[in-house]
């Protein structure tokens, strides 16, 4: 495949851009592959890419029910950070962060990873205790995360209201400077192009309807709306729909799928230089390169596969945004949308082998999967190639719910006392 570069762009500009090749093709599925990945989002396409690049496995099909990158990859608010508390979480998210830095060059596709900094606001003593715990743990894990005073927070993000008269005044913030955003579609497309270039088949509009098993119980392949496709290894990477697919193999999952909404404002000239999150008032916000304020809302309270949610979720999010950034009250919501997130009891993902030989699962990222994309894909590829987890994802088993060895990032944030 021809390399992308400024010279290639210039050359094509001279001839009306007639020379660009398809970034990926749409092949007919073969009868059999070495590995089938179900789900062509960033994690699934990335898994195929790393299987091909690092493990020499290229006879791979990535099956996608709709269009590639159309799930949560293309619906999220693109926040990237790695300042998680537990060693296990920090391990996988920082693995991802290191891969983000250099991903454009690796894929020869500008994914626009922008380390503009992610700032998490502290509103009370309890927040401060929790953030300090994160900062100290991160530091000893070699992960950047620093405490800012309210004044420093305002300097980093000028639209922020730090007045003491706010309903929930800010008493500081935790800043990860390496955190930031990336262009979500480009991540899916970049992985798709790079994987296709290495021979991976990306088969869109191909819905898996069953998982086939050998008499010994091991995986034999899948049934799809485009026929039976065989493979001895199948990886399920279908955020939101994991339970449905795993049920086809008789595996019941510790997951619940919730609607998650997000919205963008009309585009404006640059005013918001970083990413800001607040758990206390429930809001996160950044500004896209196109100028829109990108705002993430919370999940609805009920399980759903509808990819829509209630207006009250949006209004509560905007309450919080406007409380933190009163200057945005006259801004306008231009578009809102929804995705489906699958959530585990401890809010940490599952990247693991399953009780079914040859069946692997990567799920449970909740609202935060995008940031992990390269790291998750990289270690999941390792897990599939070696039929054994990488040491980074070894703790993220299915069995931890039985034993009680949870990785409870949510509990660690605890509750106000």
């Amino acid at each position, binding site marked *: 495949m021809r390399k992308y570069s400024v010279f290639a762009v210039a050359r094509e500009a001279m001839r009306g851009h007639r020379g660009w090749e398809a970034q990926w093709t749409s092949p007919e599925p073969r009868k059999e592959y070495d590995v089938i990945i179900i789900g062509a989002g960033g994690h699934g396409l990335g898994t195929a890419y790393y299987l091909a690049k690092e493990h020499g496995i290229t006879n791979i099909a990535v099956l996608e*029910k709709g*269009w590639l990158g159309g799930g949560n990859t293309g619906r999220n608010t693109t926040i990237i950070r790695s300042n998680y508390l537990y060693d296990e979480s920090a391990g996988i998210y920082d693995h991802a962060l290191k891969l983000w830095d250099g991903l454009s060059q690796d894929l020869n596709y500008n994914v626009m990873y922008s380390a503009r900094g992610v700032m998490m606001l502290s509103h009370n003593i309890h927040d401060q205790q929790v953030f300090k715990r994160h900062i100290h743990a991160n530091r000893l894990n070699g992960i950047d995360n620093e405490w800012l005073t309210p004044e420093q927070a305002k300097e980093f993000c000028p639209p922020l209201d730090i007045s003491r008269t706010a309903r929930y005044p800010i008493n500081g913030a935790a800043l990860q400077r390496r955190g930031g955003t990336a262009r979500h579609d480009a991540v899916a497309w970049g992985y798709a192009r790079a994987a296709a270039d290495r021979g991976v088949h990306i088969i869109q509009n191909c819905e898996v309807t069953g998982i086939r098993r050998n008499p010994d119980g091991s995986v034999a392949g899948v049934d799809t709306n485009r026929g039976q496709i065989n493979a001895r290894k199948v990886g399920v990477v279908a955020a939101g729909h994991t339970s449905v697919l795993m049920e086809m193999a008789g595996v019941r999952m*510790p997951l619940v*799928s919730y609607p998650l909404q997000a919205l963008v404002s009309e585009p404006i000239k640059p005013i918001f230089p970083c990413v800001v999150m607040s758990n206390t008032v429930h809001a996160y916000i950044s500004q896209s390169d196109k100028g829109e304020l990108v705002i993430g809302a919370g999940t609805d*309270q009920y399980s759903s*596969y*509808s990819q*829509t949610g209630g207006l009250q979720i949006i209004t509560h999010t905007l309450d919080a945004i406007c409380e933190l950034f009163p200057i945005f009250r006259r801004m306008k919501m231009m578009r809102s949308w929804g995705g489906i997130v699958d959530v585990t009891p401890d809010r940490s993902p599952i990247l693991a082998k399953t009780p079914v030989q040859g069946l692997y699962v990567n799920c449970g990222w909740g609202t935060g999967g995008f940031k992990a994309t390269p790291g998750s894909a990289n270690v999941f590829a390792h897990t599939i190639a070696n039929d054994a987890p990488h040491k980074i994802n070894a703790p993220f088993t299915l069995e931890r719910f*039985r034993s009680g060895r949870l990785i409870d990032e949510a509990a660690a944030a605890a509750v106000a006392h």
Partner: protein
Amino acid sequence: MLLIYCPYCEEERSELEFRQAGDAHIARPTNMTEMTDEEFEAFFFLRDNVKGLTFERWRHLNGCGRFFNAARDTVSDKFLTTYKAGLPKPDLSTLRPATEAIVETYEATESDAK
């Protein structure tokens, strides 16, 4: 914002008055201490997470305060029925009117975008 029929208030009310409370018909075993780790895992952590008809609990928190059960389609988010806590699962055949088309979702629409 859903509209939910409370079987105790005998009226449809805004979702704002309710809190969802997870899956219905998962009885807490009376012999808790005799359960195996696998059984406890299945009881407390594993969920069907149905795409389609699901049975779930709601509490009319800012209303009559009662927990009750609902049968809802997780694809359309439509309620098929709600019923008081303690009642058995209603008969499915009476719940889904044969004439009612399965609702097309955005997702279906988007998946059609080939």
